[in-house]
C-alpha cells in the first residue's frame, strides 16, 4: 500500500511493528526483507514518485569549503527510491581486509567480519540487479575473456577483480509493485522531525512527522530504523535532544564525525608498447551484466606500503584538453550543458572554457565525425534506449595511451564532520553543515599506490605510467570529496566512545533505534557503497525478524 502523508489526519497516530525512515537503497531493501517475514512495516519517505524542487530544497545545507564538497542538495535525492534514482550502478563488495583493524589506518576495523556480511551479498546483488555474486573474472565468466593488460605482472596489483553494473536500478520504480503487493505501508511526503523518547530514556516512544502541506502526525513503533542516508541520518539524530541533551545517540559527541567519502581522480598517462595488449572496456557476463576489470592494490602490499585500500581503472584522456584529438571526448565537453551535474562535474571540471579551446574541440568533433557517429549510435541503442544501460563512456584511443582513474579509501577521521547549522529549512528543521577533511594518510595512500603502479608497469615491461608526483594531492582533491558516498557518520563499534551503533546497528544509547546505510560503516573501502548498504540492510532485517 502506498499512502500520501497529506491524507493522514493531523494529530493522529500511525502504529507499526517496525518504522523505517527513508525509502532508498537501504530502506526499501529492509522493508522488502521485513514484509516477506510477515512483519508489519511502515516505510516513511519524504518525497513522492517524482522529483520535486520544493521537497529537494529541504536537503540544502552549507559546506565549510565549497571546493572540497558538493552542495548538500546534490548527489542525493529526496524522493521515493532515494539516490538510486540517479546512481551510476557500480557494484562491488567490500574486501575482507576492510573489516580488519589495520595498523596504518587509524580507527580501522569493524565489530563484524566479512563472514557476518557474506551471506547477504548474494541477495543484495540480486536486489541491485547486478547478476551473480561473482566478482573475479574466473568466477564470473564461462568463456575466456581479454586480459586488462597482457603481460602485466600481478604481484602488486591484481587485474582479475570486477566491478559489476546495476541497470542502474531505481529501487523505487523497480520495487514499487512488490511493496504494494506486500503488507508494507509506504507513506510518501512524510518528513520526520523530532525523535521523542519515553520516560526510561532508553526507548524511542514516537517520532513526529510533518508534511509540506502543513499536516502533522506521530508514528509509534516497537522499533525504528533510520535509513535516510549518511548525511540526513545525522541530521535526524542531532535535531532532537535525546537522553543526553546533545542529540539522539550523541552523548559522546560521535554522531556526524568520522565522515568519509572516497578519494578519486584522474591522473597521468599510461603508455603501452603493444596497442593490442590492453582492453579497458566492458565484458558482459552470461546473465547479461556489464562487468569491468580493475587494477586492485593487493592487501599485503597495502600493509607493506602503509596505505588504505586502492583501485584504479584505465580511463580516456582528460577531456578538457583538446589535444586528445578524439571527437567524442570533445563532443562530451561541448555538451556540458545537457549532462547532469552529478556526472558532468568530473567530466568537465570547473574551469571556464576559452574561445580557442572551444574551436579546437569543435575541430576534433568535425574531423573525427565517423567515429563520433559510431559512438553515438552505440550510446543511443545501448544506453539511452536500453533497459540495462551501458555504464559509461568508453573510448578506445588511437594511440595506446590512457589516463588513470583511481578510487581510494579515506581514513576515518573524527575531525571530518557533519553537524547542524543555525539555518533552518521550510519545516523549521536545522540544516546540515559539512566540514569534510582528508588526512596525510589519505594523500600517502594515493601517492604510494600510484608509485607502486608506475613501478609495476616498469617491472612488467608493458609500458610506462607517467605522472607528476607533486600534483597528486591537487589531483585527488581537484573536485573535492567524491560525490554521493556519505560514509561513517554513525559508525558501528563496540566502544561508545568512538562509535554510535553496535554490531547489530542499534544505537548504543537506545534499545529500539537502529541505523541502516553507509552511515554505520566504520571504514570506507575502495568499493562504492551501495551493494554493501543493501547487504547490511538485509542483515539488519534478519536481526529485526528475531523479535517477531
Amino acid at each position: 500500500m502506498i499512502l500520501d502523508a497529506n491524507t493522514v489526519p493531523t494529530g493522529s497516530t500511525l502504529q507499526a511493528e517496525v518504522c523505517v525512515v527513508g525509502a532508498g537503497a537501504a530502506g526499501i531493501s529492509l522493508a522488502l526483507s521485513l514484509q516477506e517475514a510477515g512483519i508489519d512495516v511502515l516505510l516513511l519517505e519524504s518525497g513522492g514518485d517524482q522529483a520535486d524542487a520544493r521537497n529537494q530544497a529541504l536537503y540544502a545545507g552549507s559546506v565549510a569549503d565549497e571546493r572540497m564538497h558538493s552542495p548538500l542538495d546534490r548527489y542525493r535525492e529526496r524522493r521515493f527510491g532515494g539516490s538510486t534514482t540517479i546512481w551510476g550502478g557500480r557494484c562491488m563488495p567490500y574486501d575482507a581486509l576492510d573489516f580488519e583493524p589495520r595498523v596504518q589506518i587509524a580507527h580501522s576495523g569493524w565489530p563484524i567480519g566479512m563472514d557476518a556480511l557474506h551471506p547477504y551479498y548474494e541477495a543484495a546483488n540480486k536486489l541491485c540487479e547486478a547478476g551473480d555474486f561473482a566478482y573475479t573474472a574466473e568466477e564470473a565468466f564461462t568463456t575466456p575473456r581479454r586480459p586488462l593488460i597482457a603481460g602485466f605482472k600481478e604481484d602488486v596489483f591484481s587485474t582479475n577483480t570486477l566491478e559489476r553494473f546495476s541497470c542502474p536500478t531505481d529501487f523505487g520504480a523497480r520495487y514499487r509493485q512488490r511493496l504494494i503487493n506486500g503488507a508494507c505501508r509506504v507513506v510518501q511526503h512524510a518528513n520526520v522531525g523530532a525523535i521523542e523518547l519515553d520516560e526510561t530514556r532508553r526507548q524511542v516512544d514516537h517520532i513526529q512527522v510533518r508534511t509540506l502541506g502543513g499536516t502533522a502526525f506521530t508514528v509509534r513503533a516497537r522499533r525504528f530504523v533510520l535509513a535516510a542516508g549518511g548525511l540526513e541520518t545525522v541530521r535526524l539524530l542531532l535535531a532532537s535532544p535525546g537522553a543526553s541533551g546533545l542529540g539522539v545517540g550523541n552523548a559522546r559527541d560521535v554522531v556526524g564525525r568520522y565522515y568519509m567519502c572516497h578519494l578519486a581522480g584522474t591522473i597521468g598517462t599510461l603508455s603501452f608498447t603493444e596497442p593490442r595488449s590492453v582492453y579497458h572496456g566492458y565484458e558482459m557476463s552470461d546473465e547479461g551484466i556489464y562487468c569491468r576489470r580493475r587494477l586492485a592494490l593487493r592487501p599485503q602490499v597495502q600493509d607493506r606500503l602503509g596505505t588504505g585500500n586502492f583501485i584504479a581503472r584505465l580511463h580516456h584522456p582528460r577531456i578538457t584538453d583538446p589535444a586528445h584529438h578524439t571527437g567524442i571526448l570533445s563532443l562530451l565537453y561541448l555538451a556540458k550543458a545537457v549532462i547532469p551535474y552529478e556526472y558532468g562535474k568530473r567530466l568537465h571540471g570547473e574551469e571556464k572554457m576559452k574561445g580557442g579551446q572551444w574551436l579546437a574541440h569543435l575541430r576534433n568533433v568535425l574531423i573525427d565525425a565517423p567515429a563520433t557517429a559510431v559512438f553515438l549510435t552505440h550510446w543511443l541503442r545501448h544506453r539511452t534506449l536500453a533497459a540495462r544501460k551501458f555504464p559509461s563512456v568508453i573510448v578506445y584511443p588511437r594511440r595506446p595511451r590512457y589516463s588513470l582513474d583511481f578510487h581510494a579509501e579515506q581514513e576515518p577521521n573524527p575531525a571530518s564532520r557533519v553537524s547542524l547549522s543555525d539555518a533552518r529549512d521550510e519545516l523549521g528543521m536545522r540544516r546540515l553543515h559539512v566540514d569534510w577533511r582528508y588526512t596525510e594518510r589519505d594523500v600517502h595512500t594515493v601517492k604510494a599506490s600510484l608509485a607502486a603502479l608506475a613501478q609495476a608497469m616498469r617491472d612488467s615491461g608493458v609500458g610506462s605510467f607517467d605522472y607528476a608526483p607533486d600534483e597528486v594531492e591537487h589531483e585527488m582533491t581537484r573536485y573535492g570529496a567524491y560525490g554521493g558516498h556519505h560514509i561513517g557518520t554513525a559508525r558501528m563499534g563496540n566502544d561508545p566512545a568512538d562509535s554510535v551503533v553496535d554490531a547489530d546497528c542499534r544505537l548504543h544509547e537506545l534499545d529500539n533505534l537502529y541505523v541502516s546505510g553507509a552511515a554505520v560503516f566504520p571504514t570506507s573501502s575502495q568499493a562504492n557503497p551501495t551493494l554493501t548498504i543493501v547487504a547490511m540492510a538485509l542483515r539488519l532485517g534478519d536481526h529485526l525478524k528475531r523479535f517477531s
Partner: protein
Amino acid sequence: MKTKVLVLGANGYVGQAVIRALQASTWAQPVAGVRGASRLGDIESRKLDATDASALGNALKDVGAVVNCVAGSPAVMVAGAQALKQALAPLGAAAPRLVHFSSMAIYGGATGVVEESTPAGTGLGGYAEAKAQTETMLAGLPNVVMLRPGCIYGPSSPQWSERIALLLADRRIGDLGAAGDGCSNLVYIDDVVEAVLQSIQRADVGGCVFNLAMAQAPSWNDYFIAFARRLGKVPVARIGGRRLKVETKMLGPALKIMEIGAGRLRFDTRRLPPPIPPSLLRLWGQDIRLSSVQAQQRLSLAWTPLETGIGRTADAWRALAR
C-alpha cells in the same frame, strides 16, 4: 492383472507422458482415448469423442480409472466434462477413479499464497472460466481427484518450455525487471505424472483437490535467466517496459494473425515466432504463489529441483535439430 486406465486427451503433452508412465508401471495398462488417429504407437487406443456420453460410458466399462487431460476450446472442455459426468454419475460408488485436470487459471487474478480452499476467481477469461465450470460439474461425483497444476515444464512442453526457449533464443524475453517478478509456479512434467499415478492409486484421496507447483518455485525472471543459461542463449537480455509494450500491443496481434493463417494453411505453427499476448505478460508479473503442501503430503510428491528440470529440458531442446 493390471488395472486399465483410460486416458482422455492422450495425444496431448500431458496425456502422452501419463500414457508412457502407465505403460512403464507394473500395475497399470494404459488405454488411450483419442478423437483422431493415435500418435502413441502400440498402446491400446479407443477412438472416441470425449464429448459423447454414451461412447464414454462404453469405453469406461472395463477400466479401473480414467484420467481427463482433454485440452481444446473452452466449449470442448466443458462438453467433455458434461459427458464424463453423465457417464460416471449413474455408476455411483462403483465408478472408477476420475483424475481431472483443472488449472491454476481458475484462481484468476488472485495474489499471495493460494491454497486449494481459495475460491475460483471472478470474471475469468475463456480458458479459465471453462476449467472452473468443469470443476463445478465434476465436483459432485463420488470418486474424483482434481489437479490444479501451475505451469507445466519439461522436455518438449509446448507452452512453458518450447515457447519460452524460442522467445529466449530470439532475445525477446530475458530479465523482464518488475514485469517478470511474478512467481512462475512451475511444475516439472514428471512430477505432474507422478501426481496422476498417486491420485489413481490412493483410495484415501477421493474428493480431494491438489495444487501442483514445485516448492519455492522461481520468479519468471529467475526461470528465464536460468533456462537461457542452460540453453546457451547468452548473454541474457534485459527487456524494458517499452519493448514489452511493443510486444503485446503491436507484435503480439500480428504474430497471432500469422499463426492463425498458417494454421489454416496447415503449416507447422510451432516454427513461427510465438506471440506474447497481454494475458501472458500479466501472468509473468502476477504475485500468485500456489501452495502445494497438500499434494506433497497426501500424494507423497518430491518436487524435481529446478536445475534438474531445466537441465533435462535444455538437453532435449538441444538434441532436436532446429
